Each structure stands twice: as structure tokens, then as C-alpha cells.
């Protein structure tokens, strides 16, 4: 069960929704794994078998996020941003350390994975909703509002495979956000459907944004993080480089990236000179 995590700040008790305590994660990379029984048996017989190596993806992460915060997660590709989100969703288990989460999470990452193309929109709403953690009865009650929001009332009995990809994305968004979640996970900024639906999505996300929902957002759009988030986390090769106000973290991140770029171009110039001389 959840252990109450409360920290007194200036006399108030602020509830932490997400709390990571020295979390490390080692993973095998899929590229280095053979997936082949025949090859594995033969290599064992030849004595050439070696255990596929594991890599440290997240390195002793300590993190506490208070409820209602809008947190941007930034960092280079492969820094472990999406992995961190998966840990928080409980999809991955940490190798060591502890992850504690309080509240219902709505993951908004590529929403189409839960759909069964052969089944009708109606059946898929129930299926996807139950996978996301609601009961069948709840989902039956929610169906009208989901159909209305996604604008698919006329398609209720049509199999999902005959919907356009935009419609499918709308449906996924409508199901995942029909109930206001305690924690909203956004991996990259959404680009769902046509212009009018985008506006509807934006309104709904803004409503969550302005309420007490905790938002975690992975984005490469640094200006968006600076403007919309009040906190930011900077991950660098699995380590927490910096956590603080969005402005400070983005500034520091940009500064470091530019410095690295300068260094790179200096080396480049140097190398070029050597070649030319």
C-alpha cells in the first residue's frame, strides 16, 4: 500500500503525488538479444554463449513531485525521459529503489495500442476503458459522452478498422481523458485529428492544466516547457542533472547545449585546419 508522503513546507503540508527514492534501472537492449533458440543452444554447445549485457538507463534518481504541479521533462534523446514516465506509470519496475505514486494516471502516449480493429467503436470503448482501469459498468455509462466528444456518434457500431486514423486518435483521446485524472502523462505534444478537434483537445488539456491535475510532459519544445510548466526536470544519460523552476532549468540546459556545440565546432575547426595545412 501507499505510504503517506507528506513534507511540511512553511507550515503547510504539501502532498507529494510522485516520489522516487534512489531509483536505478538496468535494462537489456533488444538489439543485443538474439531471440533465437537455435542460435542460443548452438552457442552454448560451442561454449561461446555470453549473457547479453545490461545497461544502466536510470541512475539513482531522487525525485519528488507535489500534487498539481506541471512538470516538463527535458534532455537529449536516450536520456531516459520516456523510461522515467514508464516507471511512474508502473509499466517498468525499478531494479533498485522505490517509486511511490498516488492517484489515477492517464497515459496519453500513442493511444491506438489498445484498440481491436475488428470490433465496433462501442466495444472498443468498453475494452480500452477497462484496460485503462475503469469497470465495464462505468464505461457503459461514459459511452455517450465519449462518443459526443470524439464526434463519432454516427459510427458507434462501425468497426474501428474502417475509421480514419484521425478518428481513431480522437477516440483514444476521448476515452483516456473522459474522467479527469490525478496525473496526466503527455509524451510529446499531442497532434490529434483536424484543427477543430485539436482545439477541443487543447481546451480539455487546459482544463486539466488549470485544475489540480499533476501533469508530466516530455517535450523537445523548450519554449513550450518554459511558458507552460512551473517545474522542469533535466535528465542526462539517466541521471538527474537538474530540477527546479522551468525557466532556470531550460536556461541552464540551453547554456550547456550551446557550450557543447561550441566545443564541437572548435574541435571541428581545429581538425579542419590540420587537414588543410
Amino acid at each position, binding site marked *: *500500500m*501507499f505510504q503517506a508522503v507528506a513534507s511540511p513546507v512553511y507550515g503547510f503540508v504539501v502532498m507529494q503525488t510522485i516520489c522516487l527514492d534512489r531509483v536505478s534501472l538496468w535494462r537489456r537492449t533488444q538489439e543485443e538479444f538474439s531471440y533465437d*533458440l537455435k542460435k542460443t543452444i548452438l552457442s552454448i554447445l560451442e561454449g561461446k554463449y555470453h549473457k547479453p549485457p545490461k545497461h544502466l538507463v536510470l541512475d539513482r534518481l531522487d525525485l519528488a513531485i507535489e500534487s498539481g504541479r506541471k512538470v516538463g521533462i527535458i534532455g537529449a534523446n536516450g536520456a531516459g525521459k520516456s523510461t522515467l514516465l514508464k516507471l511512474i506509470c508502473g509499466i517498468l519496475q525499478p531494479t533498485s529503489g522505490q517509486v*511511490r505514486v*498516488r492517484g489515477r494516471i492517464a497515459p496519453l502516449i500513442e493511444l491506438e*495500442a489498445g484498440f481491436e480493429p475488428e470490433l465496433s467503436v462501442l466495444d472498443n470503448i468498453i475494452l480500452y476503458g477497462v*484496460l485503462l482501469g*475503469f469497470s465495464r459498468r462505468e464505461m457503459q455509462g461514459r459511452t455517450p459522452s465519449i462518443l459526443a466528444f470524439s464526434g463519432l456518434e454516427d459510427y458507434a457500431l462501425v468497426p474501428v478498422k474502417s475509421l480514419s486514423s484521425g478518428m481513431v486518435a480522437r477516440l483514444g483521446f476521448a476515452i483516456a481523458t473522459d474522467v479527469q485524472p490525478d496525473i496526466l502523462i503527455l509524451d510529446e505534444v499531442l497532434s490529434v485529428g483536424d484543427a477543430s478537434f485539436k482545439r477541443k483537445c487543447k481546451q480539455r488539456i487546459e482544463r486539466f492544466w488549470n485544475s489540480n491535475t499533476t501533469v508530466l510532459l516530455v517535450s523537445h519544445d523548450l519554449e513550450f516547457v518554459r511558458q507552460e510548466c512551473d517545474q522542469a526536470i533535466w535528465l542526462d544519460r539517466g541521471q538527474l542533472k537538474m530540477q527546479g523552476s522551468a525557466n532556470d532549468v531550460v536556461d541552464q540546459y540551453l547554456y550547456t547545449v550551446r557550450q557543447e556545440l561550441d566545443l564541437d565546432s572548435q574541435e571541428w575547426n581545429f581538425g579542419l585546419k590540420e587537414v588543410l595545412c
Partner: protein
Amino acid sequence: MYQSEGRDFWDLGAQNSFMRYREVLYVLVSRNLKVRYRGSLLGVYWSLLNPLIMTSVYTLIFGTAFASYYDNSIVRYMLGAFSGLAVLNFFSSSTTQALTSIVLNGSLMNKIRLPVSIFPVSMIAANVFQFAVGALPLLMMMTLLISHSLTNVVVLFLPLLALILVASGVGLLVSALFVFFRDLSYFYELVLFLLLISSPIFYPQEIVPANVRAILVFNPLSSIIASLRQIAISGHAPDYSLIGHALLSGALTLVVGWICFKRWHHQFMDLL
């Protein structure tokens, strides 16, 4: 370690997570059956076609030759072949579907937190449903007509329970192995063929040499088939030692499958 509080999650205490598991299992099984039969319940009877055709083929070819082992009755040979094939058919279709189930749902498990075991279990459950509307009524009718005893009809469920246990155990085991070895399906076809040959389905057990028969005991399906036939076709009162044997081998298979699954399932997510 992962801890959470919220209705989305599995560690809410035993009762709640059991309810959740049941809900998810229900939608996955109904998805499976709906896709398979596209709303027509008659589709279920397609699955009977295979054992019925196989039974008639075996009867045509081996019936006369082996009838002497079946009280000189070709009908009895036929019923024996059918009950054996019904068991084997259930076992092979449920476990081959379970085999790929985790890998096929890998992308889903990368997005939503779900208990991994639910995918192989849902495949077994869908096949249980199919068996219950397809072969089971035939077996029950057969039992009632031959034994004239309701006890036999009721007790018939015990070897079938053992069958579900064996299929679940093997289903969990192969679905876990398939995550690591994607060429397993070829090997598994061979295993299924060995099971077919080593189960006394189309031949009487008596023709196997005694020392070879000792090895065949390790086939978990043979005790189930023996018990099922004893209850359904022999016309005698149920032999509880045979049932006990079947249930024991079923429970053992499930425990072995479950232990392996539990040991390996932490490694799945890295490879999906």
C-alpha cells in the same frame, strides 16, 4: 519496488485487484471470441469440425484393426478416438494461442500497466468457452447414454478440470519462453506432434511395449485421456484413482508453469 494508490492499479489489496483481473479478463476473452466468430455463434461449431473429421479418418483406417481391443466394437473405438482428440485439440489450440499472446500484446503492455499473466490466461479461457459449447455437450451426452448414470456426467468435469490446469501451466510456460525465443513456435509444433503420438488416442495403450509405456506416463495428457474415457465410455462407475492421477499431474504442471513464469516475468518488459 513500486507502490501506488488509485483505482488504476493492481496493488490495492487482494480483493480489488482480483476484481480488476476479472474485469480485464472478461473484456479480453470477449474481444477474442468476438473477433473469432464475428457475432455468429455458429462459428463455435467450426472448431468441432477438426476433431470430428479426424475421428472419422482414424476410425476408417484403424477402426477394424484395433476393434478387438475395444470389445470388438468399432463404435467404441470411434468414441475413444473422439474423446482423445477433443482433449488434444483443446490443449494444442489453447497453448499455441497462449504461446504468442504476450509478444503480440507487447506494445500494449508498453503503454498501459497490465498484469502479464492475463494474456495467456485469457487465451486459455477463450478456449474453455469454446470447448464448453462445442465438444462438452457431445461428451456429456455420450457419457449419459453409455453409463446411464448422472454421477458419471458430473464427475466428467474433474478430468476436464485437470485438462485446464495442464493447459494453463503449459500456456504460461511457453508464452514466457516465446518472449525470449521467437523461433519457439517451430519447436512447439514438434512437441505437439510428440504429444499426439504419445497419447493413446488412435491406438489402444496395450499395443505399446511395456518399457516404452513407462516413459509415456510422463505425458500429462495421457492420464487425463485415460480418466475421461473410463468415465465416459467404459460404462462403469468412475475410477477415482484415475481422476486423482489426472488432477495431480494437472496441478503439478500448473505449479511448474507458474513458478517459471513468476521467475522470468520481470525480464519480459526489456525484450518486448
